[in-house]
């Protein structure tokens, strides 16, 4: 049967909110750029989860289509982001974001 009837939409919402908050706090507290990237991925996937859940709840597949797009874009973002990190590492020898202050106004 429909998986929603066994678990319930509220739980999905709670889970995804928890995941999003974990990601957000990870982003704020950690200084290592790779960990921050991972936090961002968690946040993205929390949103994806919610999208899929609601898509199933409303019996409207377009939400799931959106998820595919999100994943594709996220993959592209990671590719670019990691490339930037590699070049940052080559320049300053570490990837602590506190050392990236060249943009100071």
């Amino acid at each position, binding site marked *: 049967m429909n998986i929603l009837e066994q678990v319930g939409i509220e739980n999905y919402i709670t889970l995804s909110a928890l995941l999003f908050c974990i990601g*957000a706090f990870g982003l704020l507290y950690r200084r290592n750029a790779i960990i921050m990237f991972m936090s961002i991925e968690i946040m993205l996937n929390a949103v994806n989860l919610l999208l899929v859940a609601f898509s199933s709840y409303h019996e409207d597949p377009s939400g799931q289509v959106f998820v595919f797009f999100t994943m594709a874009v996220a993959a592209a973002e990671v590719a670019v982001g990691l490339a930037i990190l590699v070049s940052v590492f080559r320049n300053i020898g570490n990837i602590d*974001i506190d050392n*990236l202050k060249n943009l*100071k*106004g």
Partner: protein
Amino acid sequence: MNTTILLLLFAPLVGFLINTFFGKSLGKTISGVIGTTAIVVSFLCTISLFSQINTDGKEITFHLADWFSIGSIQVNFSFLFDQLSVLWLLFVTGIGALIHLYSISYMHEDENMHKFFSYLNLFVFFMIALVAGSNLLIMFIGWEGVGLCSYLLIGFWYKNQDYNDAAKKAFIMNRIGDLGFLIGIFILGFHFQTLEFLEIKDLLGKDLITPSLLSIAALCLFIGACGKSAQLPLATWLPDAMAGPTPVSALIHAATMVTAGIFMITRMNFLFDVCHEVQNVIAIVGAITAIVAASIGLVQNDIKKVLAYSTVSQLGLMFLALGLGAYEVAVFHVITHAFFKACLFLGSGSVIHALHGEQDMKNMGGLRKVMPITFWTMMISTLAISGIFPFSGFWSKDEILMTAFHNNIPLWIIGSIASIMTAFYMFRLMYLTFFNDFRGTDEQKHHLHESPALITIPLVILATLAAIGGAISLPGNSWLNHYLAPLFAHKSHEAHTLGTTEYTLMAVATLGALLGIAIAYSKYLKKKEIPVADSEVQGLHKVLSNKYYLDEIYVAIIVKPIYIISSFAKKYVEKFISNAVIGLGGATYALSLKGKKIQNGNIGVYLFAFIFGMVGFLVYVFIIRDVK
């Protein structure tokens, strides 16, 4: 025919372009020859047009291009060649060509000779546009163009700040008049829905609904003419304009440009004919200018200044004739004046040339023997301007005085006194310059010489014209009046039939001139008086040599108040505005100093602000607002 007209219009422009872009590399003589050739071409074309119009008497309208149309007003680049404009072009291009020829020699030592010729060519081009334009706007283009060239040429020796000031003065004075002219054009355009001379003339024949509006328009046009033709109260620029090279004074400030005001009024004669109050104003202003300028001319010591005041005075006489409705008489005097005044200016240029720039008559004298050609040509022109029979000035001045006598005796008296003064100061000039002993330095005396042929040939031609020019309009048998008759609506003033009155008037005028000459003779030739320096003169003499303090009065009533207002504005208004602006800038700067601390380059802080901002926003949208 179209080719002739195109050549006539654009030959000077082509000369201007060549001299502007290639003049320096072509060398002085060639650039002078090109400039002169351009004007000669125009002159030849004018002769062919003139002979055609003189035979069949039909005007030619030449449409060059459309310009613009607003509402029902259509303005085109079109030109009107009728008796008046072709006659005017004839002496503009003719005298222009002679003066160009003269300048080849006169300006040969100047490093910017090509520039001089390009300006002169441009001037003639605009003058042709002014004279030949078939509507008021084309005339206005020419009007402004000649003003520009006048400015450029007065300030031609731009390294002297006095000359630059004189150029600016001429330009600003003219601007005042031009504003009047422009307003006049607007009123006429508004009233008639056209700017074409011939159409206005036709319409004016049909309706006379708002003569007061027309009077205002005519008065505005007259203000424009005042500025351009140096009439009081806008006259003071012309004497200062003598700062320009002498050929410029001869061409622009004696023979052609300053007569533009008279041309314009003659062109619009159908308008002035219906505005009698304005005609009275013109006559009175002309008479006052004639006598005021002549009296100032009595005591000037600069040879060119004397001629400048004489020009203003003669222009005043022409305006007197215009105001009395005797347009053909004014035109006659314009023509004879162009001959003898151009000759006088060129002659004074020849003298100045021989003395290496000396213009003060106190340091001249005795030049008769060394410069015979210059002396005799100037003598003929002096006799002409003084009104001695049978030289040209006698006939034209006499016509003006006769017209004045028949219309208004006081004006006749003023004009006659101005004529006596003219005879006096012109002979004073001749005696001081050419008679007695030379008063300059030995160095100058050593270098005295007659000028070269390029200078003397134009002098001889102009002196000949000054001598015989009166033949075009002899009393009783006037070719000029007959030729111009189609232009004037009213029955042309018949050249006065010769009765006892006329002979008496002629005798009186001649006696007056002889009186002026006699005074000058006894004072400057027999007693050998030398005028004292301007700083030592006393009484009335002092008032005259300070030009009735006209410049000082203008400074006191116009320039000073403006300075006071502007220094007030600078002190308070300017301070307030600039402080407000500076304060605003300062506040922004101080704020941004604080604000820039937010942007400290720390990515952690950015993220923190970003997330909490977003959370705060969501809290507001979904919780706080919903609760409300």
